[in-house]
C-alpha cells in the first residue's frame, strides 16, 4: 500500500456554459481520516471529483494529490482508487472488467480475485454486468478502486443503492482504510448516510464551500430550534412573521430559529392559529447540515 497523500483543492472553478458548477472552491483532505464531501444534488460534488481525477478540465484553480495533478501521477491506480459512477460494459463480466484495467495499468492479474473477494463479489464474478443490481455494481466499482492498493480513495456516492447489510459493510470498510493511514474522501447528498463513518466533513452548496471541519464541530454549530405546524400553514406563517421569528418551511412544518417552543406557541396564540405540532427540535447534525446548504433544497 502507498501512504496516504493529502488531496488539495485550491481556488477551483468550473462552469458549463452559463451554469456555474464549482465556484472558487478550496479545501484539503487529510490522510488517516474519512472525510465526507457533502451537499445537495447539483451542489458540484461530482464535478469537483471529476476535475480532481483529470476527467473534467477546470476553468480556474488546481486539484492535486500532494501537489501532483492526477494526469501526472506516475502510477495512477496505485496512488488513487476512484469510483465515480457504477457504469460498466453490460456484456463484460466483473472479472474481465477488472482484468482489462489491471492490464492497462500494468498490475498483476493476481490482484483481480483478491479484490473481488474483498468486496464479496467472488460468487458473481463470471456473470455479465448487465444483470447486476445497483448494489452489485457499487461493489464492483469499489473492487476497481482496490486494484492498485492505493493510499487515496475518492468515492462518489458509494452507499447509494446498497442494502442495509451493504451499508454496514461499507462503513466498516471505510473506517478500516482510514485506520491504515489512507486518505478517504466519500461524497453523499445525505449526511445521515455517512455520519456514522466520517470523521471530517466538507460541505458545499451551489458550488461554494459552506463548511469544512470535524463532524463534532458541525454538531456544535447547530443551535436548538423549534418545529411548529398547523393545518393552516399560511396563517401560521403570518403569525410567525408578525412575531418577528425567523423560520424555514420543511416537510413536517416550520423550523423556527427559536429554542423556546413556548414563544412560538405564544406567537401562534396571538395570531389565533391552531397548532398540531409544537416541540423543540433536537439539536441534530442533519438540521445543521440542512441549514448550511439552504433548507434541504434539492
Amino acid at each position, binding site marked *: 500500500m502507498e501512504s496516504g497523500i493529502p488531496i488539495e483543492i485550491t481556488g477551483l472553478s468550473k462552469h458549463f456554459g452559463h451554469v456555474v458548477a464549482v465556484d472558487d472552491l478550496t479545501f484539503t483532505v487529510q490522510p488517516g481520516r474519512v472525510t465526507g464531501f457533502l451537499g445537495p444534488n447539483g451542489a458540484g460534488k461530482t464535478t469537483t471529483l471529476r476535475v480532481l481525477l483529470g476527467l473534467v478540465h477546470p476553468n480556474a484553480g488546481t486539484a492535486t494529490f500532494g501537489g501532483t495533478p492526477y494526469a501526472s501521477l506516475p502510477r495512477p491506480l496505485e496512488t488513487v482508487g476512484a469510483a465515480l459512477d457504477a457504469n460498466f*460494459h453490460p456484456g463484460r463480466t466483473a472479472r474481465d472488467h477488472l482484468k482489462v484495467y489491471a492490464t492497462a495499468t500494468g498490475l498483476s492479474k493476481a490482484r483481480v480475485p483478491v479484490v473481488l473477494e474483498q468486496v464479496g463479489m467472488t460468487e458473481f464474478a463470471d456473470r455479465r454486468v448487465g444483470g447486476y443490481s445497483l448494489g452489485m455494481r457499487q461493489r464492483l466499482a469499489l473492487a476497481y478502486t482496490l486494484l492498485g492498493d492505493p493510499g487515496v480513495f475518492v468515492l462518489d456516492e458509494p452507499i447509494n443503492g446498497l442494502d442495509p447489510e451493504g451499508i454496514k459493510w461499507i462503513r466498516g470498510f471505510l473506517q478500516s482504510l482510514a485506520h491504515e493511514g489512507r486518505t478517504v474522501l466519500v461524497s453523499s447528498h445525505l449526511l445521515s448516510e455517512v455520519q456514522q463513518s466520517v470523521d471530517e466533513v466538507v460541505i458545499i452548496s451551489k458550488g461554494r464551500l459552506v463548511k469544512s471541519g470535524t463532524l463534532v464541530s458541525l454538531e456544535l454549530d447547530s443551535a436548538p430550534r423549534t418545529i411548529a405546524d398547523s393545518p393552516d400553514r399560511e396563517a401560521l406563517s403570518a403569525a410567525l412573521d408578525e412575531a418577528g421569528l425567523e423560520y424555514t418551511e420543511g416537510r413536517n412544518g416550520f423550523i423556527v430559529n427559536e429554542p423556546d417552543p413556548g414563544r412560538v406557541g405564544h406567537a401562534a396564540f396571538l395570531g389565533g392559529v391552531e397548532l398540531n405540532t409544537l416541540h423543540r427540535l433536537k439539536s441534530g447534525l442533519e438540521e445543521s447540515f440542512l441549514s448550511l446548504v439552504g433548507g434541504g433544497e434539492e
Partner: protein
Amino acid sequence: MSFIRAIGSEFQKVFTTRMWWLLALLLAGYVALMSGGFGAFLGWASANPDAAAAAGGGGTPIAPGLDLAPLVYSFATSIGYVFPVLLGALAVTGEFRHKTLTPTFLAEPHRTTVLTAKFLSQFAMGAGLGVIAFAVSVGTGAAALAGFGLDTGLDDPDTWALIGRGVLAMALWGAIGVGLGALVPNQVAAIVIVIAFTQFVEPILRFTASLNEVTANIGKFLPGAASDALVGASFYNIASLGTAATLEWWQGGLVLLGIALVATFIGGATTWRGDVS
C-alpha cells in the same frame, strides 16, 4: 511500456465482449453467400454463355477470358469492409455509450495513448477479419469455380498478392472505424453513418462519378474506390457502366491510411479531449 499495456488492454476489451465474433460470423456468412453464390453463377454463365445471355435478357455480358477468380475472392473486401469499420467505430463509441471512459482514463490518463492503442489494435482486428473474410471467399469461391472446371488461380502468385493487399485494406478499414468513432461518438449515429455511407451513398456517388471523365477522376478517391484499387479487383469494376478510373494499388492504400489518420487526429483533438461526465 504504458503503450504496450494500453494495446493489451484494448485487445482484452474486444475479446471480453461478444461483438467481435458476432461481426466475424456475419462477415463470414455474407462473404460465403456472395463469393460462393456469385462464383457459382459466374461459373455457370461462363460455361453456358448462350443460356446466360438468354436468361439475363442482355444483362452484363461476361467477357470471354475474363479472370473470374480475383473478382470472386475480392468479395471479402468489396462487401466485407463494412465489418471492420463497424468494429473499430464500436470500440470508440462503446466507451462513450457505456460511460467506460471514466475507468479507462483513470487507468491511463494520457488520452492520446488510449486512442493510439485503439487505432493500432483495431488495425490488427481489421486484419484478422480480413483473414477470416478471405478464408471464406477463397474457400467457397474456389470450390464454386472448380465445380465448373474454371481456373481457381490459387497457383498464381498474383492471387495471393491480391489476398495480402485485401487483408491490408481490411486492417485500414478497422483504423478508419476508430477515426469515425472519435469523430462521431454517438453510437447510433456512427452506425447509421457507416451503413448509409457504405451501402447507399458511396455506391451511388461512385456510379454517378463514373459517368463523366472529370468526375471519375474525383470519384476514384472515394474510400470504397480507393479500397478496391488497393485490393486490385472488385465486382464494382464490372458492374459499373461508365469510365472506370482507378488509382494505383499503393495510392489506394495511402488514401485509406490518410482518411484513418485524419479522422482519428481530428476526433482525438475534439471529442476525445472533452470533459468526461
